[in-house]
Structures are given as C-alpha cells and as structure tokens.
C-alpha cells in the first residue's frame, strides 16, 4: 500500500526559505500572496494491507526518523482510503 507523509514546520518556527519565496512571488506580480511555508512530502510504498496498522507503523516511522518533532509536524495520507 501507499502512504504519503506531509511534513511541515511547526507554527512559530521561522522559515526564511518560505519568506524568500513569498518575496519572489510578490516581485513576479503575485501580490496577493501573504505567506509561504515550505515543507516536504515523502511517499512510502509499504508491505501492509491493513490501513489502521499501516497508519500506526507510519506514525512510528515519523516519530523515529522522518520528522524532527522539535520543529516539525506531520500528517499521514493514505490514498484511496475510504
């Protein structure tokens, strides 16, 4: 099964990369952009058929390695899940 982990910076953590992108968009004429925050997306292909167990295992992966929980939040998306 597939799982997608979206990792984003926690509220309140300064994101200079996001800020630079926001300014660049403004310079390009997209003045309507107020804020930009940059995260990352990790796609996992896993041998697990049960969505609940998959979610549990992926959460564990996030806590152990994929996300730095000091400064990052994560959410897990299982495509095609009902």
């Amino acid at each position, binding site marked *: 099964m597939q799982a997608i982990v979206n990792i984003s910076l926690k509220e309140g*953590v*300064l994101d*200079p990369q996001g800020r630079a992108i926001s300014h660049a968009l403004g310079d390009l004429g997209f003045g309507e952009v107020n804020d930009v925050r940059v995260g990352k997306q990790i796609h996992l292909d896993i041998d697990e058929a049960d969505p609940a167990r998959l979610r549990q295992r992926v959460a564990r992966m996030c806590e152990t*390695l*994929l996300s*730095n929980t*000091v*400064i990052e939040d994560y959410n897990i998306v299982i495509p095609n899940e009902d």
Partner: protein
Amino acid sequence: MTVSAMRVAIIVFPGSNCDRDMMVAIEQLTARRPALVWHKESTLDAVDLVIIPGGFSFGDYLRCGALAGRSSIMNAVLDHAARGGAVLGICNGFQVLTETGMVPGVLMRNAGLKFACRDVDLTFGETMNSPFTSGFEAGQIITIPIAHNEGNYFATNDELQQLEDNGQIALRYCEGKSFGASNPNGSAKDVAGVLSSNGRVLGMMPHPERAMSTLHGNQDGAHFLKKSLEALVS
C-alpha cells in the same frame, strides 16, 4: 594522565569530510593518532573523548545529521555519554548531537539561505563546569572559521532561557575583527555552541581543526582544543 595518553575516537560516516582534518589536529596536540571508527561498528572501545566531525554525512539527506544520528555506532556513543563520557560534535557533528538529543535544540538552514565560509568571532558564555570551557574566562573572545549551510540554532524561548540559566550556552557569535555580520546564520541568541545538561558534551558550529597553525593564519582552534584536552585529563 597526560594529554599524550588520551584515547580519542573520531566517528566516520559516509560523507564525513573533516575526519582527517580533526585526526591531524588531535595528533598535533597529543602526539598520538586518534582512532577513526566507521559508523557500522556497534561497539566503541573505552575512550576519553569521542569526536563527531564535520561534513555532509549521508549527503545531509532528510535532515542534516538525521541518518547519521540513527547509525549503528551511535548507540555506543549514547552509552558513552550516558556514563558521563565526553563528546565533541563539530558542525555536522553538532547536527548529529541535536538529532540524537545529546544536546538540546535544532540546527536549521542559515537565515541568509546561503552557505557561509568565513571567520567568526566567538565569546565564551558563563557556563557550568565543563572541560570545554573551564580553560577560558567568560567573555573571552576567539576567532574560528565556519563553513555551513545549516547552522541556524533554534530552541523555544523557554528552552533558551533554561539553557542560559543552566550555563549551557558555551559559545556565542559576537562582534570582533572578522568581516561581515557578527551572527552569520540567524542563530537564536547568537548561539554558536551548546553544552549538554551535564557539561560533558559540546556541540559547536565553528571548526577549530581549521585554526591550528601559522600556516592556517590562526591558532585559536589549537588553543581551544588543547585546553579542552587538558581539562579532560586533569
């Protein structure tokens, strides 16, 4: 024990670049070559100091130091630290220390979003008793080169206050003779180096092994390492 009898181990990950530099620096000061320990080892011989050197371990993939921090050898390093052993993490090594929780905080991308290689001036903080700072007065200034893309130290305000109260902020960027902004990367409270809660582990972004001799044009790094080694054996 004298400095020349010290046992020093330098951990090497795939992508570590400054292991040889640190090995040469320690050998210069102790007349004894430190051991280079490959990351796949699971045990560490008894040592007086473990050094985690600079570089781009595992290509800085996922997050700097994230994969190295979960490497096989790190269990032994954590045990060594838990028993009060001394650990020095330089640059990528500092990143590994924060990823493993051996020192608090996180190193994020430089605020200027660019790699920065230059001299910086550092001042020693009012710290707890630590072999890495006991040879220096609070407020004393040294000049050491940095070279990093992710040296921007972050911790919550509460954590920062706690670090300050506990005397864990070992080094701060400060004004001095070096060209450019005194804080090169946006680090909170100008933090350049942080101690563990028992003062036996230090993570720092600047590279003392690059300031070892007249050929380097700067010996402040040799001075810093020498005092640290002397304090560790006394």
